[in-house]
């Protein structure tokens, strides 16, 4: 792994935790526009060479982000394939930025389509449980609220920052919510009508990659026969052969006891893998899919990509 690869991988992981994968893509694309605007390379060829290197790095971060491959694969064709061939054109910067803006527009449309399909879930009078801080799920809830739907939200408490992110967003949108520690949900199973999740990606093993803690919670509600829904765009699919647990990072660190002179090792895992079959429906920008249908759609795209 080169130093630039490492810098990008660290940065992407940190940002993904903070803003989620979809907003992360937007951040990277907008930053690329800023970088192109500020680029003062001596030669046009210089830009093209560096752009190819950049695209290579971005599509090979650790973990790999399916969404990056989706959009940067498209950009690679457009910028390296088209813009960079017009080497004598002095307006190459304008062309490159135009292409990135098209990608951004497409990403936003894809999100709108997903939200449109989320209307197929009837949430009126229901209590929805959320756990991860998926911005897609947050957007869907805000959409329901703005369309006058009456529902309640229970936030399963987990990492301080992620829970607070959910609280801030729901509070801002005026959505009625309560917070319950994730390990105490068994006391309120009967109050929860449905569970919403978002994901980082879907692997070829038909496992979603989600925030840690999701697997036990989803399993719990699967056993209870409470419907669990996944909200994820098809642009996040990992359309390559996956390695074993490559996307799961283990953070080991020393921690001190609050009151006693005890130091201990604390281990945290970056993600959980959750089988798609545990979800009742998967809401995508191409429609509401069952796990079986999702597999078909995925395989089709996987073949096309190959």
């Amino acid at each position, binding site marked *: 792994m080169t130093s630039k690869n490492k810098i990008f991988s660290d940065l992407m992981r940190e940002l993904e935790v903070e803003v989620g994968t979809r907003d992360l893509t937007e*951040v990277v694309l907008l*930053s690329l526009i800023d970088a192109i605007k500020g680029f003062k390379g001596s030669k046009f060829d210089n830009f093209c060479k560096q752009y190819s290197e950049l695209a290579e790095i971005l599509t090979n971060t650790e973990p790999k982000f399916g969404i990056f491959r989706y959009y940067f694969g498209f950009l690679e064709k457009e910028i390296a394939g088209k813009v960079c061939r017009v080497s004598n054109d002095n307006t190459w910067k304008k062309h490159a930025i135009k292409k990135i803006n098209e990608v951004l527009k497409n990403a936003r449309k894809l999100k709108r389509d997903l939200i449109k399909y989320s209307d197929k879930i009837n949430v009126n009078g229901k209590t929805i449980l959320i756990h991860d801080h998926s911005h897609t799920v947050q957007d869907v809830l805000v959409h329901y609220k703005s369309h006058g739907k009456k529902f309640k939200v229970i936030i399963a408490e987990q990492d301080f920052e992620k829970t607070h992110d959910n609280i801030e967003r729901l509070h801002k949108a005026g959505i009625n919510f309560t917070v319950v520690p994730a390990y105490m949900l068994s006391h309120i199973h009967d109050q929860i009508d449905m569970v919403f999740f978002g994901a980082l990606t879907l692997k070829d093993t038909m496992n979603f990659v989600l925030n840690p803690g999701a697997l036990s919670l989803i399993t719990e509600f699967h056993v209870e026969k409470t419907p669990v829904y996944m909200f994820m765009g098809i642009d996040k699919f990992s359309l390559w052969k996956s390695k074993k647990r490559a996307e799961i990072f283990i953070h080991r660190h020393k921690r001190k006891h609050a009151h006693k002179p005890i130091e201990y090792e604390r281990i945290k895992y970056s993600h959980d893998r959750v089988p798609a079959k545990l979800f009742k429906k998967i809401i995508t920008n191409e429609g509401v899919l069952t796990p079986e249908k999702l597999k078909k759609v995925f395989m089709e795209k996987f073949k096309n990509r190959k």
Partner: protein
Amino acid sequence: MFEYLTLGIFGLAFVFIVIERFDKSLAALLGALLMVIFRILTPEEAIHAIHFETILLLMAMMILVNIASKSGIFEWLNVKIAAFTKGNPLAIFLLFSLLTAVFSAFLDNVTTVILIVPLTIELVRGMGKDPKPYIFAEIIFSNIGGGLTLIGDPPNIIIGGATGFNFLDFVVNLWIPILFVSILTMIVFLLKNWRTIKPISDKLIDLTIANIIIRKVKIKFVKKTIHLDFVIKVILALIATIIGFMLQGYLQLPNYVIAFTAAIILAIVTTKKINIHESFSSVEWTTLLFFAGLFVMVAGIEKTGVLEQLSHLVANSTDNIFILALIVLWVSGVVSMILDNIPFVTVMIPVIAGIQASFGATDVSILWWALSLGACLGGNGTLIGASANVISADIAKKHGVNISFLGYMKFSLPLTFGILLVCSGYLYFATL
């Protein structure tokens, strides 16, 4: 016997202040109490020895800065500047060094580095660069900026309190050496670190990384709620304070009255946005009591006549004011590299006042400026030379950047000698 006892108490307290076995305020207060218990000073003399003007000014500024920082204005300014640099390492270096100097001129140096160093580390390290040169520059510019104004650094507050020099006197007499010292420091930094801070505008990958980091910082900041009315009130209060300090001569009001008026009015108009108990608790009582203890101990020493003898000794050694100013500058500079400059300046106050008295009508105010320059800028020499240095190294360590004593000194010591040489040049021209 009386003299030996006084010097013994002071010496012992000073040793404990230097080795910091326990908090230095305790050492200073114990020393002050022993001066009273052993009848070196009467309780009334001890109370009278405390420069309440200095302590009240510090207290008022601590409250004012605490309320101002609650508005988020300093973080906002940081983020704006980060965005303005567009990720250019040279721009980050220049603007953040300048911002540090400006902040330090009006806030205390420790607050300044607490605000700026973490953001710098995040920006620079995120780009895969070594943040140390940037942190070194910020440490040095915090001490340089602090040296410019009456409220920028505790030694200046002590000197102002003892001499009656106002805010404008400090700026008028110190801006030239501070400007030249800043230019020298900037040139040295640029020459030494050009490879790491040169512009990256021809490197698309680095530019993209830099822009992603800037957006990341903005996202973090956006999560904090900023109330525009609060920010405006803070800006107005800070401007009013600075104007008040500048017009002190016309207003005929002590600095602490001006600072307290601004702090209290700001607290009243922002009362719903702040917790006044928290703002008052932010006053660093250990620092203020340390000052009080020092003032009492120095009064004890003064009573023995030792400081008067020292003044005569120095004053009689030469009648050349430039040489005297050089002695004051270099002694205070070198001492401040190793020891806390606050007790040193407190001891030097009666010494310089004594020299001044022995010169009669001749204007020797340059000695005060030499003391200020030496004490404020000498602290740059080592990692323990000033509180801002120690705090910056701590912040860096918390963020995984290890700044060693020698690693810092290899760079800072020659630069500090260069800085003191520039100041010597200024003193030469000022005494012509």
